[in-house]
């Protein structure tokens, strides 16, 4: 298992992320707008949550994640400000090709109640 990240997402963080990433979609920022969507209230950016996945992988593989890392994920459920999420990674298998070892990692982001937020895989060279 990779070292997990457990973090509570706040509306202030969502707003800081919107400014930093340049994504001011009102579904993240405008309570009145979000109230009219099926979610009923503001949601965090998917890329904000995914940033924590990348943080976990960078911590585990400081050089090889940024140089050769790959991921493929699905966003399963929105994260509402105030919710705590748990980011995990588990090495599913290690393969070797032409003398280079690579790890396939199962990625998971869940809420406190176990609901999936993100599922997917990441791949990173080990050598």
């Amino acid at each position, binding site marked *: 298992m990779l070292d997990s990240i457990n973090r509570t997402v706040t509306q202030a963080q969502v707003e*800081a992320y919107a*400014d930093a990433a340049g994504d001011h979609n009102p579904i993240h920022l405008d309570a009145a707008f979000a109230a009219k969507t099926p979610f009923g209230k503001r949601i965090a950016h998917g*890329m904000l949550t995914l*940033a924590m*996945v990348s943080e976990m992988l960078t911590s585990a593989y400081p050089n090889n994640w940024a*140089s050769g890392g790959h991921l*493929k*994920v699905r*966003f399963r459920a929105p994260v509402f400000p105030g919710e705590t999420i748990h980011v995990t990674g588990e090495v599913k298998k290690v393969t070797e090709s032409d003398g280079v070892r690579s790890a396939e990692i199962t990625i998971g982001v869940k809420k406190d109640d176990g609901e999936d937020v993100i599922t997917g895989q990441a791949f990173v060279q080990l050598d």
Partner: protein
Amino acid sequence: MPLQDLPAGHKFPSESLIITETESAAYADAVGDTSVEPVERVPSMAVVAAGLSRFIKHLGLANGTVEVVHASQEASFKRPVTPGEGLEIRATLKSNAERRGSRFATVEMLFIDEFGKEVATASSLIVVNAT
């Protein structure tokens, strides 16, 4: 041109992207990322996030007239990006279809350095619903 009028295969005008030290640090601070020193190395996902934000803005999808949901994401990183480094974003609309009243669009982005080499690639599936 509105998203619904763009055919699959449409290539967007290339755009330049520079993530400054300040922007890199602001991104790392916002997401709570302490895994890199952001004034020395841009957090990997910050590059993809910047590209996707531009695509959404370019198509006028961030103006409150539609609901945009991020459904899936792929990303590959070839090498770290340094703050202040000049990149070019080449984006292509890989798919664009309406199903059951929702529009599903996939945009592929290539991030190219000043030497013409890829530093990252990404593919984002977004779902757009009328509000």
